[in-house]
């Protein structure tokens, strides 16, 4: 990769935009939005700013290519802003990134995202990105148009002007591109925005899509997640080819130094182990630029054969159960939900953490359609190719019937639920370049499965209680409906008088009353189980739940809300801005 020249980089991407999410008019709009929003969130997070974003997407004309519309996408943030001198680079140059080098759980990773959007705008509408930026130091904002010079992979800033902007700092970027708009469904814009809202409880978002009114979603926490320090990859996660490529990033240093600084968990002691396992001592001090493939192979094999400490899990970050609980209620009115945040763990020698939120909504989804699945990798919604994804596999492998949900064999369960599963790791392995499916390794699928089971068990408390409620209601109804019919028919067949009828009616009432009392008892037990659970996690549900004190619970890491919980989160509301 390093030998590729700058000019070929821009050219390469211009010809292969489909690889990075611009494979159809629908995807082009979604990807442009996604790249801009990801960048805004990353920038805010890295600067400890609580993000407030506003997104506007509308049709402004006909597209230049067939079957497309000209779509305008505007994203504005309150982030640190971009230095005017960097504007052209950020929006017009590939592989220009502050997040470059791997190992952090940031959304952006490689410096391709926003330049690809600029290229698409340029290819379809002859104009790149329109950007306004202001940093804290600036009194006025800078506005201009950035184009990609595809031949040389440099950004060009045009029509630069200084303008007033009543904002301390931030970036506003606008693209006009050929595209088409899909709001709902797996690849929809609303699905993306809702997913983003869910895993970013600290985000305040205003959005207006097409002719709809502005929608305002308030943040439910005031803490900016702190993205952990970058971590180095663990050598056991590498294949030989990757190992050699990795070396090219480090220039002319010794193999010893490369091993120790290029990877985590490689100590002096580990190096002596490598020697024991057959790494020729003399190779260690040679510069890696002089090593041949055979040398790399020897080194690689010795490293693979040596037991190494598992990587540290400090580099992962979680949304957290409390925030997730509040955040999910921003997606609509819910009957009940459960969340589970696993402890960070190691899968395939990579630190990873899985979080799950399951919720049943009152006005969303239907009884006999599959649950709505929201997948996330490093808090970025994944919206395509769900079938081979580790998350989908894990959900399908769980027997949801035991938790009271309907589920066709080896499929997603059914019902008006949202299943949100988030995987965070500095080294997520995707199945393909467009980064839509997480590679389904056995260890990762197992870890996701454990999280799902935890959340599922808790969800079932709600479902059970509801089932008992329905059972009681049905029983009471039965008594009312069938009791009189039974007695009357018996009286007719036996030609009995009214006083016998009265006595039989009373006897029947007594009998069935006993039964419904049993059902009431069962309901009470189900209710108190649920109350115990809520009390244990009172911090999530506020005072309402804290009132009912209960004994402690079996497994620890799951939380839920009561039915129609008073969301401490402000509800989503729509009004004119």
């Amino acid at each position, binding site marked *: 990769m390093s030998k590729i020249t700058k000019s070929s980089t821009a050219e390469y991407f211009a010809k292969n935009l489909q690889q990075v999410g611009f494979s159809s008019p629908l995807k082009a709009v979604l990807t442009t939005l996604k790249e801009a929003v990801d960048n805004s969130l990353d920038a805010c997070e890295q600067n400890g700013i609580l993000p407030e974003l506003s997104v506007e997407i509308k049709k402004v004309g006909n597209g230049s290519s067939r079957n497309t519309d000209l779509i305008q996408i505007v994203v504005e943030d309150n982030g640190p802003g971009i230095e005017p001198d960097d504007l052209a680079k950020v929006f017009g140059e590939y592989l220009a990134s502050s997040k470059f080098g791997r190992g952090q759980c940031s959304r952006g990773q490689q410096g391709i995202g926003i330049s690809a959007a600029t290229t698409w705008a340029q290819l379809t509408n002859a104009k790149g990105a329109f950007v306004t930026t202001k940093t804290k130091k600036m009194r006025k904002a800078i506005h201009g148009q950035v184009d990609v010079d595809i031949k040389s992979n440099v950004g060009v800033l045009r029509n630069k002007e200084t303008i007033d902007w009543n904002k301390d700092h931030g970036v506003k970027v606008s693209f006009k591109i050929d595209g088409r708009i899909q709001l709902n469904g797996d690849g929809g814009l609303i699905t993306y925005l809702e997913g983003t809202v869910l895993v970013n409880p600290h985000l305040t978002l205003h959005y207006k899509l097409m002719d709809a009114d502005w929608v305002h979603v308030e943040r439910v926490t005031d803490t900016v997640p702190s993205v952990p320090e970058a971590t180095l990859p663990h050598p056991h996660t590498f294949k030989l080819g990757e190992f050699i490529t990795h070396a090219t990033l480090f220039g002319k240093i010794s193999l010893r130094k490369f091993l120790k600084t290029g990877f985590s968990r490689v100590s002096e002691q580990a190096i002596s182990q490598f020697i024991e396992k057959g790494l020729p001592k003399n190779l260690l001090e040679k510069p890696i630029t002089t090593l041949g493939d055979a040398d790399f192979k020897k080194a690689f094999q010795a490293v693979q054969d040596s037991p190494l400490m598992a990587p540290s899990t400090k580099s992962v970050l979680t949304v957290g159960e409390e925030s997730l609980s509040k955040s999910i209620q921003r997606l609509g009115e819910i009957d009940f939900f459960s969340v589970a945040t696993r402890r960070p763990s190691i899968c395939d020698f990579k630190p990873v953490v899985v979080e799950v939120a399951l919720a049943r909504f009152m006005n969303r989804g239907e009884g006999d359609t599959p649950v709505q699945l929201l997948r996330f990798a490093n808090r970025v919604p994944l919206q395509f190719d769900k079938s081979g994804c580790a998350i989908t596999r894990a959900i399908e492998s769980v027997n949801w019937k035991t938790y009271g949900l309907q589920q066709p064999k080896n499929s997603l369960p059914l019902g008006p639920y949202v299943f949100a599963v988030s995987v965070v790791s500095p080294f997520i392995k995707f199945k393909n370049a467009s980064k839509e499916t997480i590679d389904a390794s056995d260890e990762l699928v197992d870890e996701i499965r454990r999280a799902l089971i935890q959340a599922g068990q808790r969800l079932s408390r709600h479902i059970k209680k509801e089932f008992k409620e329905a059972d009681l209601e049905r029983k009471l109804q*039965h*008594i009312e*409906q*069938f009791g009189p*019919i039974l007695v009357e028919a018996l009286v007719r067949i*036996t030609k009995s008088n009214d006083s016998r009828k009265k006595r*039989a009616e*009373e006897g029947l009432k*007594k009998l069935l009353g006993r039964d*419904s009392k049993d059902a009431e008892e069962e309901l009470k037990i189900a209710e108190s189980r649920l109350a115990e659970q809520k009390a244990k996690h009172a911090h999530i549900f506020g005072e309402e739940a804290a009132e009912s004190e209960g004994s402690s619970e079996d497994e620890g890491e799951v939380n839920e809300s009561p039915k129609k919980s008073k969301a401490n989160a402000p509800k989503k509301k729509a009004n004119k801005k």
Partner: protein
Amino acid sequence: MAKLLKIRELKIDIPKEAKALAEQMLSDLEKSKRPVLEAVKTSLDNSFYEPKIGYLTPGDKVVRTELNVSSVQKLARVVFILEIMLRNLDIGAVNTKRELYYICKGLIKGEKNLKPLDFEDQVESDAIIDFIGDMLRVYREELNCFANDRGGQTYSQNLIVTETLLDGSKAVIDLSTLGTAPFQPKNKPQSLKLKIKKKLDFCLVIESEGTANTLQSMGFTKRNNCILIGAGGVPSNGVRGWCKLIQEQIDIPIYFFGDLDAYTMQNIFRTLKAGSASSLIRNADFSAPSVRFLGVLPDDVKKYDLPYYNVKESDPSEQRSLKKAKDAIENDPFFQDKKNKGLTDILRWLLKEKIRCEQQSLFSVDPKDPIKMEKIILEKIKRGSYV
């Protein structure tokens, strides 16, 4: 209207019995005691087989339905339909199950408080009707509920049937006058009296009604002094009762000829010979224990070089019947009895070979001879080649 002919000498008086039951339920209720209804458990695990008796009889397992919030619906439905049946018995009206389903619907439509009783489809009302029969241990027909007459087309030159009609008058049918048209037995076989013009040699029951008709068209009953019946697949109550009647009233050997496969053996032949687990209380009058299995026998396949085909692994219905055959060998008292070892051996053979051979394959033996099948059948009877 005149009373219906009795189906059998019944020891109980149904209306009286039903009223006593209702009386018991009502007085239980008055005492806040839970009324209980008990019906014969009609399943294989409550079926017994005694070769001397010849058909499956019920053991003492019962299905108990005790009143509680969940069963109150079923009990209300039982009493509701029982009342309709008692009225039918009283006025001498008869109905099919489907008609009863609509009678229920009509009554429910007329009264708002009956609405919750409503049957979503006929399966629900059928289940209640069967339960009532099993509870009173009486035939559905004795409750004036009759099934459609299906199967059993019969030909003979020497059989005369006298049917006693509802109004007491009699109809006399001489089967020799019907040409190639069959006589169709009713599923009130007991209202029929049989007479023969001269002594008959045998009765032949063919699984396929079509093939029975072919034999008849080619002059089978002209050449042979016999009764020829087409069963028409799984024998209906009409067919079963009719064969029983022939066994009782005319003392001749009865042979069954059908496909060589697990389904025919278990569902068709076993039912004809010994009844079924689901009709435990009626097998006595609806099975003909003397019927023999003439073929197709495994030996015939070899002897006549009959075309057969392999049971497809992919065909779920054939797989199911093989699985059922295995269950039958393990659990069905009929196939477990030593007396029926010959039949069980056929099931075993079918399981092992996984082939099936159809009754019509006899037509392949000498394709130019239209009565080759007749010849083979006669030869087999003569040779004693049956089980």
